[in-house]
């Protein structure tokens, strides 16, 4: 596999404010990378840097083996799709699609051929002679994708393309983008704050915070083995349960309140003995039972039962600690029920309290 995008030591300062800090990413050809993070984490800024819409302070950007750090956006071989669609309101859909090609002084029959191909892929043929004002949100976003498509480039940049759409359209277009990717096999960099989009679309996810990439890995790893507390808490809804305690017995057990939890089977590094550690367990990795099981368990009381349709969320209280557990519908329990919780240690994550890194 060859590298499609290489970001080397990229730093961006706005005045004295450091927005992106010493960033390094390699994106393979045909890969779908999602930049995920809360607002203000610099993910859109990074995308704008890749597109050449922002001048970076330090570092280099390579696209397709070419140093494009100081190239014009149009010369980088990228297509970009924006959150607000950014269609030119005075032009028809056809005009929007062909605007960039006309700027390249491409022959007319080639423009027509490309517009026809894009409109066929995106099924916007009947809309070609309409103005953007006469289109629905979903149609506008298709046209915006088409505008990137006609450029026939290797790298697509998406800046929160689905955020302005309603939930139903969003899931439809999400699938469509996925289909588009498998069909065209372009490199795609996709910015979003929606973790569902990230988890479903990405080959790899870069979770960002404060201008730094916290973890860059495939969705499975991000979800199951978050590299630090932030990633663990940010990914997953409802978020991971965090138990504050310490590791004892040479790292073989976790002490939480009065309870001792055996760490046998923990999938990670050497636990060692730590005075302060955090055990993170996802809501679906906790089992609920009426009777105390043979292994280690934590007694708790059901406070609220949230029914979600396919499954149910139990909000419990273990001592003073609040926990959330995802149970199948038949496992629903009325409030006030006393239960015992079992933790699936093999799927849990242990974090150092100071460094907040996964152990």
């Amino acid at each position, binding site marked *: 596999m060859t590298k499609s995008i290489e970001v080397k030591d990229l730093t961006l300062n706005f005045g004295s404010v450091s927005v992106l800090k010493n960033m390094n990413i390699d994106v393979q050809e045909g890969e779908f990378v999602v930049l995920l993070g809360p607002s203000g984490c610099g993910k859109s800024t990074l995308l*704008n840097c890749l*597109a*050449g*819409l922002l001048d970076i302070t330090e570092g280099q950007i390579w696209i397709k083996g070419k140093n494009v750090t100081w190239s*014009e*956006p*149009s*010369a980088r071989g*990228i*297509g*970009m799709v*924006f*959150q*607000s669609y*950014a*269609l*030119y*309101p*005075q032009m028809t859909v056809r005009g929007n699609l062909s*605007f*960039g090609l006309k*700027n*390249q002084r491409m022959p007319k029959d080639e423009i027509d051929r490309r517009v026809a191909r894009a409109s066929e892929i995106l099924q916007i043929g009947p809309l070609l002679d309409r103005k953007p004002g006469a289109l629905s949100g979903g149609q506008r976003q298709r046209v915006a994708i088409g*505008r990137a498509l006609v*450029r026939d480039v290797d790298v697509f940049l998406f800046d929160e393309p689905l955020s302005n759409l309603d939930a139903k359209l969003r899931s439809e277009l999400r699938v469509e983008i996925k289909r588009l990717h498998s069909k065209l096999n372009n490199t795609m960099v996709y910015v979003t704050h929606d973790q569902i989009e990230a988890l479903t679309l990405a080959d790899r996810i870069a979770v960002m915070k404060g201008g730094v990439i916290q973890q860059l890995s495939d969705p499975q790893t991000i979800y199951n083995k978050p590299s630090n507390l932030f990633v663990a808490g940010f990914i997953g809804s409802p978020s991971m349960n965090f138990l504050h305690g310490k590791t004892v017995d040479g790292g073989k057990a976790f002490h939480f309140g009065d309870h001792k939890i055996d760490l046998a089977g923990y999938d990670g590094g050497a636990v060692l003995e730590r005075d302060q550690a955090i055990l993170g367990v996802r809501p679906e990795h906790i089992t609920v039972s009426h009777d105390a099981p043979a292994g280690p368990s934590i007694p708790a009381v059901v406070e609220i039962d949230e029914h979600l349709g396919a499954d149910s969320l139990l909000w419990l209280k273990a001592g003073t600690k609040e926990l959330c557990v995802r149970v199948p519908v038949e496992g629903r329990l009325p409030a006030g029920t006393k239960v015992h919780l079992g933790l699936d240690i093999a799927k849990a994550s242990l974090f150092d309290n100071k460094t907040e890194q996964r152990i």
Partner: protein
Amino acid sequence: MADTALPMTKSAVVPSGTKPRRILSGRNIMLYGILIVVCLYYILPLWVMVMTSVKGMPEVRLGNIFAPPVEITFQPWVKAWSEACTGLNCDGLSRGFWNSVQILIPSVILSIVVASVNGYALVNWRFKGSDVFFTILIFGSFIPYQVMLYPIVILLREMGIYGTLWGLVLVHTIFGMPILTLLFRNYFSSIPEELFKAARVDGAGFWGIYFRIMLPMSLPIFVVALILQVTGIWNDFLFGVVYTKPELYPMTVQLNNIVNSVQGVKEYNVNMAATLLTGLVPLVVYFISGKLFVRGIAAGAVKG
């Protein structure tokens, strides 16, 4: 149908017939009374001017300024346009009119073109110090014109265009710059930035984006700028009298010279006709583009 109609007929308090309305309520008398008084206040001077301008001098001398003319004559209009004397010249306002047109057209075009490009660059192509540049430009609009009258005389003299039409055009362009730039900058900054970014990705350059993306979206603000500049430059007196020579005086200066001439009889009818003629151009511009003007103002043109 029957289900929904039933409760309607049962209800006893369905209003029927025309709603009684008191035309002479206290509120209405107050409202319309004030409106009529205000209207009269604005219309009367115009009425007096128009009536006087179509009366002959004997009738004007009778002093009934509000009375309609007994005998309508357009002689005062003809005289104001082509025969009224200012000093040695006796060719009326016509000379001033054409001078004004020659000053107006290049000044308006030049100032709007430069200011719109300024505003566009200040919003979308920010450069180091662009904010400082803008602040200085805006500061310019607070400096009283009178302060700069003499320095500009010297500047124009050194450039060799003092007393020419082009000198005055340059002055109008410069003095229109702060407010027009502000106007365009605010309008362009209301256009989504992503549109500009998309156009850059599409390979359009500075002028490509300006002409193909920004201009077609900006008709309302151009109309606002047009109206501001046409009325402002047409009504200008000070610059016209300072920076041109008598044979190049704009219409306003010519009007003043006709109205204020101390020789002979005061021909009120001619003066009125001359004044109306001078005011005609801004009036026409307002009537033609008033609707667009309002739309442009509403489109965020004047928001801070």
